Every structure is written in structure tokens, then in C-alpha cells.
């Protein structure tokens, strides 16, 4: 017997599988330039996020595009999915030299 109640579209249709980031440290970039880092404790299909022990990276007062290493502690935060531009795991992140410079050959 078919279920006549409408279920709607399947949940978690997102191409980003946040389940694998659960309880991991992630870095979130927001549309206004804010950058945050914290432990992912929850999310929904709209990419609203719950981050624990969250720090916000403060921006350079002279140049708002530049993010410094100074942080302010925010604690448990909810991030609006409409404002999220990037979510990435902190693990495996390292600063490297510019890989796009063409080496000069003599």
C-alpha cells in the first residue's frame, strides 16, 4: 500500500556532506568577510551551522580584506546558512609559498 502522505524532497541533498565534519574543527567564511573557527556540533540542510568554542578572526583595521591572527572568543554560536560562503576542515590546512610563480629558467 502506498503512503499517501506527501514526504517532500529528500533531506540532505547538499553536495557538501557536513556529517563528515561533525565534531571536527572547521573554518567558516561568511559573506561580509567574517572568518570563524570552531568545532562543528550541528547543521541543517540550509547550511545553518552550530559551532562550539568558536573564535572569530579579527580583521586588519586598515585593510578589511586582510584577516589577522587575532581572535575574539565567541563560544557556542549559530551561523546563518544564508551568510556562509565557505566551510573547510582545519585539519590539513597549511600555509605555503606562492605556487603560481613561474620559476625563472636560465
Amino acid at each position, binding site marked *: 500500500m502506498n503512503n499517501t502522505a506527501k514526504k517532500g524532497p529528500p533531506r540532505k541533498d547538499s553536495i557538501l556532506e557536513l556529517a563528515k565534519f561533525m565534531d571536527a574543527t572547521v573554518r567558516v567564511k561568511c559573506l*561580509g568577510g567574517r572568518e570563524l573557527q570552531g568545532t562543528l*556540533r550541528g547543521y541543517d540542510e540550509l547550511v545553518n*551551522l*552550530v559551532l562550539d568554542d568558536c573564535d572569530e578572526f579579527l580583521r586588519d*583595521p586598515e585593510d*578589511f580584506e586582510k584577516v589577522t591572527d587575532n581572535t575574539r572568543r565567541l563560544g557556542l*554560536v*549559530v*551561523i*546563518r546558512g544564508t551568510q556562509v560562503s565557505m566551510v573547510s576542515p582545519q585539519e590539513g590546512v597549511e600555509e605555503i609559498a606562492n605556487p603560481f610563480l613561474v620559476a625563472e629558467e636560465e
Partner: protein
Amino acid sequence: QQTTEHAPVAKFLPLELIDKCIGSRLWVIMKGDKEIIGTLNGFDDFVNMVLEDVVEVEIAADGKKTFNKLDQILLNGNNIALMIPGGPEPEKYPEYFR
């Protein structure tokens, strides 16, 4: 009778966390350099919010904060970036409590 699907992972749903915050202090950080601290009365599907006993904080480029006191407001959810239940901690952010 209602059947609900349970997600296998125990996690916090973001909007459930905000729902639990109704009646308590909430610190809302906007996309730009403005923050709102108030008691959450409620919110809708778009996360427009009704807050009361509100302190509006405007942060200038040099970090200087301007505080405005407001009674009850409807805050447009369009520019809300972060929400922090409980509000700023007085020990960490004493300037918000003058």
C-alpha cells in the same frame, strides 16, 4: 499517527538551539559591523527576530563601539550572520554592560 525520520547522528539543529533561547539573552552579530543584544521573544522561518530590552552596538573602523538602547524591535533577518545564545559574557566583554 506520525512517523518521523531520525537522523542517525546526534547533533544540534541550529534553529532548535535558537528556539531554546526564546526568553533569554541573545547576541546577534550582523554581516557588517553592527551587533544587537536583546531578549529573544521569537523568530520566523526567515530568522527575522523580535527582541526586547535591546542594546544596539555599532563598531567603527577603529574599533570604537557606540551603544544605543532600544525597547522592542523587529530585526530583519536578511543581514544576520551569527547568533550567540546567552549574549556576551560580562567578564570577557565588560564594555557591553556599562
